[in-house]
């Protein structure tokens, strides 16, 4: 059985339908990302799995236990990083981590946890004297100190500088390599592309797309865009027959949207050589996850290309 299984989850808050039948599962050792705009239901999903909130309908299982009633046995095996920072300002870094470490049966050494998030230099500092990003890193240390089998990270790298973010990515990857299962929410496409084996895009409490980053790219934007600037030689520009109907010109750039860029490129370069045109800044672009995301979350929904 997969460590995280969600089936047809529904949840409403008074007027808001936060989740409208969400289903996915996360395999052992996998990093799964939830992507979606503000209010999409990411935190709601994660907090149901952490046992904080009760779903109205559907099932949620973590390590084959019901998170709402799993109690201590489940909590010993999961690590939590909440979206909102919650630390005691009066304690220092070491005391904070130690207070959490002693609650778990197989905790890693306190200093090791501190080093994992690169806070060794701030070990003795009071939490209230830490910067926002340092506090966030401390919380990540609290999430991993119990050496959990399943780790929930709700927007873990929000507020971190690029360097710290990369360190956290390394940490997440090394946890993955050690066989931990990770459920992550994020607004950073780059982060999701780097970390997630699979992801789903959640909009208004519904999953709009699911798969690996590559699968999603294949599924949503098979078309590649070839772009270049023509360097003319006075001759009239007549594009080769095979691509002529796909050409779009805009501000001196030429764009070509094609399903398979290889023959198009072949034809184009041969044509340019033959007529003595230059193809400046020639690039082939695959749609990024970000493009797909923006396409799926745009309101109103545009037609699929």
């Amino acid at each position, binding site marked *: 059985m997969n460590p995280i299984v969600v089936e047809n989850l529904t949840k409403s808050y008074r007027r808001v339908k936060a989740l409208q039948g969400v289903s996915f599962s996360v395999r052992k050792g996998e990093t799964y990302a939830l992507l979606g705009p503000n209010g999409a239901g990411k935190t709601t999903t994660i907090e149901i799995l952490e046992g904080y909130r009760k779903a109205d309908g559907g099932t949620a299982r973590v390590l084959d236990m019901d998170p709402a009633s799993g109690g201590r046995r489940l909590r010993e095996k999961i690590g939590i990083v909440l979206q909102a920072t919650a*630390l005691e300002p009066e304690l220092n870094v070491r005391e904070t981590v130690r207070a*959490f470490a*002693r*609650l778990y049966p197989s905790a890693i050494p306190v200093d090791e946890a501190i080093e994992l998030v690169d806070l060794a230099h701030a070990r003795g500092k009071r939490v209230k004297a830490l910067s926002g990003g340092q506090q966030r890193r401390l919380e990540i240390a609290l999430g991993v100190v*119990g050496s959990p089998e399943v780790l929930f990270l709700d927007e873990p790298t929000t507020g971190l500088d690029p360097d710290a973010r990369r360190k956290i990515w390394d940490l997440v990857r090394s946890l993955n390599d050690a066989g931990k299962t990770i459920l992550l929410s994020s607004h950073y496409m780059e982060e999701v592309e780097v970390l997630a084996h699979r992801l789903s895009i959640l909009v208004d409490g519904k999953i709009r797309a699911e798969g690996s980053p590559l699968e999603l790219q294949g599924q949503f934007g098979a078309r590649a865009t070839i772009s270049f600037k023509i360097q003319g030689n006075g001759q009239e520009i007549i594009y080769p027959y095979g691509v002529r109907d796909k050409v779009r010109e805009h501000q001196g750039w030429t764009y070509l949207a094609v399903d398979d860029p290889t023959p198009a490129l072949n034809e184009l370069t041969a044509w340019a050589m033959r007529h003595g045109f230059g193809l400046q800044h020639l690039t082939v672009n695959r749609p990024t996850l970000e493009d797909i995301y923006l396409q799926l979350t745009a309101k109103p929904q545009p037609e699929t290309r």
Partner: protein
Amino acid sequence: MLLLFETFHQLRLFMRRPAAVFFVAVLPLVLLVIFTEIFGNDPVSAQGVTTAQFYTPALAVFGMVTACYTYLAVSTAIARDTGVLKRVRGTPLPPLTYISARVIAVSVIAVLSVVLVVGVGVAFYKVELLHHSLPASVVLLIVAALTFSALGMLVTALCKSSDTVIAVTNATLLPLAFVSEVFVRPWRELPTWMKWIADVLPLKHFSSAFQATFKPALQGHGFVWQGGDTTLAILPQLAILVAWGIGAAVLASYLFRWEPNAG
């Protein structure tokens, strides 16, 4: 073992909050010194005790209630508002252990604050410690610490935010302390309705019983139901404290929430 660690954890947090230390441990001492110096430490005719002998247990009561009721309620509410309680709830720490640690910590603080006030009274103002009623004082102290902790948790459970909790604890403790005759020596009868309020609520019972254990005129160990002009009896007050404590604890555990309030 976990309970011990968590209790130390809470004690450490207290020690690092100067405002809390001031109100719980320093203020009662300052008041004792001020009152004794203002009123003079002569025997008061009606009761035959000195000012310090009267105020020492009274201010000990005040410090104790500040710790168990006000500080516990406010610090717990702040921990809830800042998400600390929610975060704790997501760890394997059993909720009961965590709450117990908080209660034990404030009780320890309360007892230390009482020892401090009584110690200063004994050392500098010739306050008499009565051997025969000392066990009664100690039992009262422990029971009252638990009762007022339960009331503190009840206030936290009833209020949405720490701001409300601060307002409610202050708005209840100070007036109640006055109508319960903690601060004033009653040289005049209080209005009936005030008396009635004080009689219903637990503070007066605690403070009068605790003060009684400091009255040299009263004899006996105090663990009797029926007292008199010369015999000490704390069991009636003790019973009222226990009833309030159990009632508040049951209600608080029923209403208590761990998450910050959304609305």
